[in-house]
């Protein structure tokens, strides 16, 4: 299969990419690794007039520790590079998810920025970043840099808060104080590997109350985050579940009761792989598993 014809521009620097976007934004698509975009172009489900190739912009690749302690992941960082990064793999939910995303060859090409900007409603990375409360950095030639909380980044299936002239440059992960555990559990569609239902959980005892003689383990779990992919028309945080579990100690019975609300307010998708009832049942199972694994990993 051959994509429809397009004009091709390669940006060697970030500034060059932003200039090209300012000129052509509405008609252009950014290509990084191309692992999501090229299959769509080959099927002619996407027919951009112009591709702007950012694959060679070295400054957008790699993981760095920011001065404030957060982890900054360049948009062009591949899944393979994330798998090789000890600080990323220290995040248990990343270590759960990354080895199972796509396959070895696709992980060598596919980028974290591409995954987020593409905003596939069944992709894993959006749920992971929602649970981590990541921040997305975007730049444009005329308005400079802004940061977008991941909670407001996704606006629908394949739709994000990025403006046509904006380039996603970095993803920043907070490093909260206190003790944290996390996990990612998903039921994957066997042929495609995409999530029928995927749940990322982050649970923690924050620093509140530290140093007052209270044993850390006795303090309650006061930070609970549950993010879901593959279920609705975009990834989401299950706020009702989070609120119900805060301060409960995340016993199996508390978790079991809370996850019954995980699709509240969500239009659950049904397709040939999983109808609504099955998908709803499975996301509850994945949520139970993710939450109890995250709890068990708490220091």
């Amino acid at each position, binding site marked *: *299969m*051959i*994509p*429809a*014809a*397009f*004009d*091709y521009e*390669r940006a060697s620097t970030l500034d060059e990419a932003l200039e090209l976007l300012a000129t052509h934004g509405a008609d252009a698509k950014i*290509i990084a690794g*191309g*692992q999501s975009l*090229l*299959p769509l*172009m*080959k099927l002619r489900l996407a027919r951009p007039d112009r*591709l702007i*190739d950012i*694959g*060679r912009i070295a400054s957008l690749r790699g993981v760095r520790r920011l001065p404030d302690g957060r982890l900054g992941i360049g948009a062009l960082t591949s899944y*393979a590079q994330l798998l090789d990064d000890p600080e990323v793999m220290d995040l248990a939910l990343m270590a759960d998810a990354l*080895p199972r995303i*796509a*396959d*070895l*060859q*696709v992980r*060598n*090409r596919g980028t974290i920025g591409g995954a987020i900007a593409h905003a596939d409603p069944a992709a894993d990375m959006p749920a992971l970043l929602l649970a981590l409360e990541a921040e997305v950095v975007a730049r444009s030639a005329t308005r400079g840099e802004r940061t977008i909380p991941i909670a407001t980044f996704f606006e629908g299936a394949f739709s994000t808060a990025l403006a046509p002239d904006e380039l996603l440059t970095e993803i920043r992960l907070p490093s909260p104080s206190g003790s944290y555990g996390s996990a990612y559990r998903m039921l994957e569609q066997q*042929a495609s*590997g995409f999530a029928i239902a995927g749940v990322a959980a982050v649970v923690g005892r924050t620093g509140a109350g530290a140093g007052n003689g209270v044993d850390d383990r006795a303090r309650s779990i006061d930070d609970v985050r549950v993010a879901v992919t593959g279920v609705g028309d975009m990834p989401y945080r299950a706020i009702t579940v989070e609120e119900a579990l805060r301060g409960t100690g995340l016993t199996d019975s508390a978790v079991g009761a809370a996850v019954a609300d995980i699709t509240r307010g969500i239009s659950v998708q049904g397709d040939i792989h999983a109808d609504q009832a099955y998908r709803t049942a499975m996301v509850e199972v994945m949520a139970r598993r993710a939450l109890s694994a995250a709890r068990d990993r708490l220091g």
Partner: protein
Amino acid sequence: MATTVPVRLVVNGRAVVVEVEPRRLLVDVLREDLDLTGTKVGCDTSQCGTCTVHLDGRAVKSCTVLAVQADGSVVRTVEDLAPDPDHLHPLQAAFVEHHGLQCGFCTPGMLMTALDLLARVPDPSDGEIRDALQGNYCRCTGYQSIVESIKAGAAAMREGVPMPGAEA
């Protein structure tokens, strides 16, 4: 549109320049322009893995890479593994020895993916091999003999079986 652009590659150690339309896929340029037909087109949807080649040292599915994206890169295809049929790469020899192929259509991809794994994990477990092969389909042999071939090939490569002109 439909104008061509020059793409400079080093393919199997040889510098080449090809004039291509931007929409052309790396696999098609390798096969049609450079006559390197060892790399196959199977599913053409980045699933089956028989189009796998090394791009700057890492295994990629060349049906899902534009040739222009590879401009300036080093490409290695299955043709580079053995100088001639009498001097197979130890991994190829292991596939012959352990019945790692039947029709052979998936084999170029199996070899190139396995070599990516073995460059980083010289002595992989069965599980690591099976995980690495997730994106490579075989419809003849089943995977057991492929896993055995890769284990045997890895052992031969660790022992430094002499192989002219090829590195892991």
